[in-house]
């Protein structure tokens, strides 16, 4: 069965797939398609005429929500609300709790957060850093083909693919350190996530230090200052590049210390 189609206006065709297969078919090659999870990003963009997509793909009825565990591996469906990650171990739980307020966390989806575009005033996609630190892999589709790849390879091309789920191995230890937000409606100016995998591999990643979440491999040996080799902090409405440069090593140090304590 093809996805139900609702006329919005002459410019936008709205597709409401009822299953994952229908969603993949409706997404096709993604050209001109705005994927809508909870609506928290796309709907205000359309309201303010910043974005007028040719097609909008409403994923809310496609059955892509839910968290499943298979041994030590956790898989989070694309339309799982961010709220469902709150309470999980660090870095994911505290990172999710630091997103917006409880109403928006219940509306916004994990897939939407991971695929969030760059944003107008500040980088979006707070969860990218936490999932990068966990070494997460992403299942996504385009042109009817489903592939699975590491999140850091997926992020640069997220605009052209339909995210279906994200999964990760339970870490041996995790930590999260972010700047406080003046109000729940602000994005986090800078945050660092860290996790030590069961095999001892340590991963660090930052949110707010680039157009999307980025790994900080140079600091993974324990030198917090070296994180600045991996990113180029920028000026935006939330913080200056100077401030981010000063604060990034501090947050990295806190995460490294916390991981050391839990060793």
């Amino acid at each position, binding site marked *: 069965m093809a996805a139900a189609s609702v006329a*919005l206006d002459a410019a936008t065709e709205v597709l409401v797939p009822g299953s994952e297969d229908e969603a993949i078919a409706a997404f096709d090659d993604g050209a001109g398609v705005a994927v809508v999870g909870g609506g*928290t990003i796309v*709907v*205000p963009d359309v309201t303010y005429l910043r974005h007028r997509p040719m097609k909008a793909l409403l994923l809310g009825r496609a059955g892509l929500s839910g968290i499943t565990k298979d041994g030590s591996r956790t898989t989070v469906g694309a339309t799982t609300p961010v709220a469902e990650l709150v309470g999980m171990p660090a870095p994911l739980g505290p990172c999710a709790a630091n997103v*917006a*307020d*409880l109403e*928006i966390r*219940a509306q916004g989806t994990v897939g939407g957060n991971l695929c969030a575009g760059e944003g107008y005033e500040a980088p979006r996609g707070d969860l990218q850093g936490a999932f990068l630190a966990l070494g997460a892999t992403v299942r996504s589709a385009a042109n009817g083909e489903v592939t699975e790849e590491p999140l850091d390879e997926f992020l640069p091309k997220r605009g052209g693919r339909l995210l279906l789920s994200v999964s990760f191995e339970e870490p041996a230890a995790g930590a999260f350190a972010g700047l406080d937000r003046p109000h729940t409606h602000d994005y986090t100016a800078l945050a660092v996530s860290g996790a030590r995998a069961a095999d001892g591999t340590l991963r660090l990643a930052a949110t707010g230090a680039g157009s999307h979440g980025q790994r900080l491999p140079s600091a993974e040996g324990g030198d917090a200052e070296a994180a600045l080799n991996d990113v180029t902090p920028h000026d935006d409405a939330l913080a200056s590049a100077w401030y981010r440069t000063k604060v990034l090593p501090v947050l990295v140090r806190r995460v490294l210390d916390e991981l050391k304590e839990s060793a």
Partner: protein
Amino acid sequence: MNLTVNGVEHHVDGGGLTPLLDVLRDELGITGPKAGCHQGGCGSCTVLVDGEPRRSCLMPAAYAEGTEITTVEGIGSPDDLSPVQQAFVHHYAAQCGFCTSGMMLAAHAYIAGGGTDDHEAIQEALGGHVCRCTGYSKIIDAVAAAARGDDFDLTTTAVGKYTTMATGGAA
């Protein structure tokens, strides 16, 4: 598309990406939910969707089909105010009133979910709601009082005599 608002089923046109807020206000004339920032930052448009507080400006109306939507008009009436509404009157928790319906619905859901009069927990529950009159202290007092199940004498506010619509002007 059919929407059930405050127990009444309505047939509406606004489908697709049209925000629930626009359908409620512009199509159905239900003006309790306010269009403040229209992008999720202020909480004045919050309604209850199956009892849970949601920003109606962010939710495509299509997602509300098949749910029970409650606006501030649905939790009480001028003659029969809900406990949260009574608490807001008694504690003088509304100034200009623009944020009030969203605040009250968030409070209503918080208390229905077992919320207590703990001020930090109330701040967390109402954290996405902005009051530009900055009347937060009295709002939190009101929610705490309603959470405790206080009785309210609506001929007075917590700070003195006050005439309210609910009491028909007694004071």
